[in-house]
């Protein structure tokens, strides 16, 4: 054991604050809860990924050779439900957000530590319901649970799945509530709103969406379960109800949910890019306003999911206009990330590769969103693979890329050890290449008219589908690699210094991994955010480490 090694192992940290199972399962430490969440969502990610793998294998040929129609329906439903509610929505907030927000604002904890732990248990309970659903034979409605199919016709386990999603919703509400109060009330002295890292802003905006939108979904799911059990309900047309009303309620939650997934990803990119370009983020204030604008306008665009469902034409026009409007703050962010790179001293380290991948894929996903926001084009593209490709560019290309980038960026802080950089770069590149190979052909398939959610297709679509399945294989390698080397790094990696990237931000002022109470000194030194390249990089940034800290 080298001296470095023993120094790391001897230093008190949140990881060394008790080794029993109980010390983890009953912890109130936001950092440990973040890790509990990380392991849970990783499990669900690979479960949802397994469903996607079977889907891609089935779609290698036009005929039905691996699964039948019903199984296929259950597979894409399981994939959607698991990935949306059990991976993407908790991904960045519940792991990175939980770990980092108190550190970034100079607090010892989140405002309500017990509620934070409860959030993870509620998540787990919801997850158990979804696992039972799968064991009991799955559910075949699609993740959207559209009525009247879900309430009156489907023969699958709709109620179980709906209960699972209802429960997991409260875990995100608890996390969101905690973040809002934490950011409002627990900032360190000197940490003003306009000194907050954009990651905190992004998670704050996300939390606002979560607490306002999720309860609407919860009640809607209650109404679905009620209607399914009693066969009487407000969505059933034979009783004077209206299935379109369900769609309005569902998308009132589920469109903002897209921003719940992507805003934290934007926050991650806003931390990584300035650090590896050695430049302060371009237009910090504009970035904060853009975050809030996205959160607000994101609430007003849900009707663009319903252009062909029979809603009023005038409503469609307004929703179309508002959907174009939400592209403006999103574009502001893309331009500002790009401008941050300008004249920067760019290092293509693995977190940066993920972050740049995020910007590129998010841009493609965002621009194709404009096609879908245009009412006339949308009529042609509704329920085709174009839509599938579009939202995967946002959710996978955007959120998953940023989540992985963030994991790499903060991994030394989280586990106190470095990961192998070469493997990390290989993984980043193979995810980027594999992702584009998987989903770009789906844009073409969609514009050629291939509908989504069928297990068979016309023979002329085979070549592009095979590209897509091949790409999924490449992407899968890119996802398994980090699982292996990040776990390896957690156990055997080189000890990490407090600030391996010379990054700005309070979380780098404390040791890696941080002590249980986050900072050895009670008040960390708060400065301007993204203080890169203003002083001489090496010495200036060195002053941020605890050893060299100015008192």
């Amino acid at each position: 054991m080298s001296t470095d090694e023993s120094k790391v192992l001897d230093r008190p940290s949140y990881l060394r604050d008790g080794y029993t199972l109980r010390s983890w399962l009953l912890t109130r430490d936001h950092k440990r809860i973040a890790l509990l969440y990380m392991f849970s969502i990783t499990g669900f990610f690979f479960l949802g990924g397994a469903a996607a793998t079977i889907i891609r294998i089935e779609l290698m040929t036009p005929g039905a050779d691996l699964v039948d129609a019903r199984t296929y329906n259950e597979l894409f439903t399981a994939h959607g439900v698991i990935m949306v509610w059990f991976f993407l929505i908790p991904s960045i907030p519940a792991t990175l957000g939980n770990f980092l927000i108190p550190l970034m604002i100079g607090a010892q904890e989140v405002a309500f530590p017990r509620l934070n732990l409860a959030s993870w248990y509620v998540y787990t309970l919801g997850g158990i319901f979804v696992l039972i659903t799968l064991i009991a034979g799955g559910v075949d409605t699609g993740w959207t649970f559209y009525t009247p199919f879900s309430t009156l016709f489907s023969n699958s386990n709709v109620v179980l799945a709906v209960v699972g999603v209802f429960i997991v919703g409260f875990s995100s509400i608890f996390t969101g509530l905690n973040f809002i109060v934490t950011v409002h009330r627990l900032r360190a002295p000197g940490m003003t709103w306009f000194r907050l890292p954009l990651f905190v802003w992004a998670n704050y905006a996300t939390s606002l969406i979560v607490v306002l939108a999720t309860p609407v979904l919860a009640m809607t799911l209650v109404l679905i379960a009620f209607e399914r059990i009693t066969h009487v309900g407000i969505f059933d047309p034979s009783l004077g109800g209206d299935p379109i009303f369900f769609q309005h309620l569902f998308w009132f939650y589920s469109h903002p949910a897209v921003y719940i997934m992507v805003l934290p990803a934007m926050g991650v990119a806003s931390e990584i890019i300035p650090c590896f370009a050695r430049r302060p983020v371009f237009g910090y204030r504009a970035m904060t306003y853009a975050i809030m604008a996205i959160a607000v306008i994101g609430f007003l665009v849900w009707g663009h999911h319903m252009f062909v469902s029979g809603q009023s034409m005038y409503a469609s026009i307004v929703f179309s206009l508002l959907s174009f409007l939400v592209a403006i703050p999103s574009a502001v962010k893309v331009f500002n990330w790009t401008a941050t790179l300008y004249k920067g001293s760019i290092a293509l380290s693995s977190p940066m590769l993920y972050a740049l991948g995020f910007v590129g894929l998010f841009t493609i996903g965002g621009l194709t969103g404009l096609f879908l926001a245009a009412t006339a084009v949308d009529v042609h593209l509704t329920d085709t693979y174009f839509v599938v490709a579009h939202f995967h560019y946002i959710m996978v290309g955007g959120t998953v890329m940023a989540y992985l980038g963030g994991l790499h960026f903060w991994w030394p802080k989280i586990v106190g050890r470095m990961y192998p950089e070469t493997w990390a770069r290989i993984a980043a590149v193979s995810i980027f290449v594999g992702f584009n190979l998987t989903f770009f052909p789906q844009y073409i398939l969609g514009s050629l008219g291939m509908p989504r959610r069928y297990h068979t297709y016309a023979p002329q679509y085979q070549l592009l589908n095979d590209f897509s399945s091949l790409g999924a294989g490449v992407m899968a390698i890119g996802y398994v690699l980090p699982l292996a080397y990040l776990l390896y790094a957690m156990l055997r990696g080189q000890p990490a210094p407090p600030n391996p990237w010379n990054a700005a931000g309070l979380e780098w002022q404390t040791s890696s991994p941080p002590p249980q109470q986050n900072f050895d000194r009670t008040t960390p030194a708060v400065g301007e955010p993204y203080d890169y390249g203003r002083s001489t990089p090496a010495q200036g940034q060195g002053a941020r480490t605890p050893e060299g800290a100015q008192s």
Partner: protein
Amino acid sequence: MSAAPLAHFDSAQRQYESATLGMWVFLATELMFFVPLFLAYARGRVEFGDAFAAARRHTDAAIGTVNTAILLTSSLCVAIAVRSAMLAAELSQTQGRHSAEIDRHLRAASRFLWLTVLLGVLFLALKAVEYRSEWAEHLVPWLDFRFAADHRTGAGYFYLAYFAMTGVHAVHMIVGVSLVATLAVRLGRGDADRANAVAMTGLYWHCIDAIWVFLYPLLYLVGRHA
């Protein structure tokens, strides 16, 4: 305010502010939880105006009115209890632990909390009586619903909305009554540390009360004599 703040708050004041903000955010989620029901009601009323009016004439306005009075009174009791609990907490911070004055405030708080519990239970009991008579009159949509043929669809929709709204409200009442009862016991034992919890539970109780204030006219009054 509680006597000693938790470690991660730098003062009791900061902890109280955090709890209050957290509770208000939670109440926002509660209101959003009811939004689909209010929307369902609104679209039903637009769609089936006459049937809604006909159906509304079968709800028991007398019980509804009495229940409204009960809830408003209960909110007053909670407000008094919060005030007493806060006074007790402030005194126990400034002076010694067991002064007679503190005990007097705590006893008053506990007594008013028990009164709240009593009123809450009375509300729920009256609601149960109401549900029972609606069941007897075949007004429960999923249990042999009967209504004049020309308004049957709209009236069925009205009673769905009625049972959903009052049912979800009643579930919140049950949670509220249990919370208030627990606190009443704690304060009755002379625990001066629970002022924060009393204040937060008070906010919750007022919120449930305020939701009823909107349910009452929608379900019992609007268009009754049209």
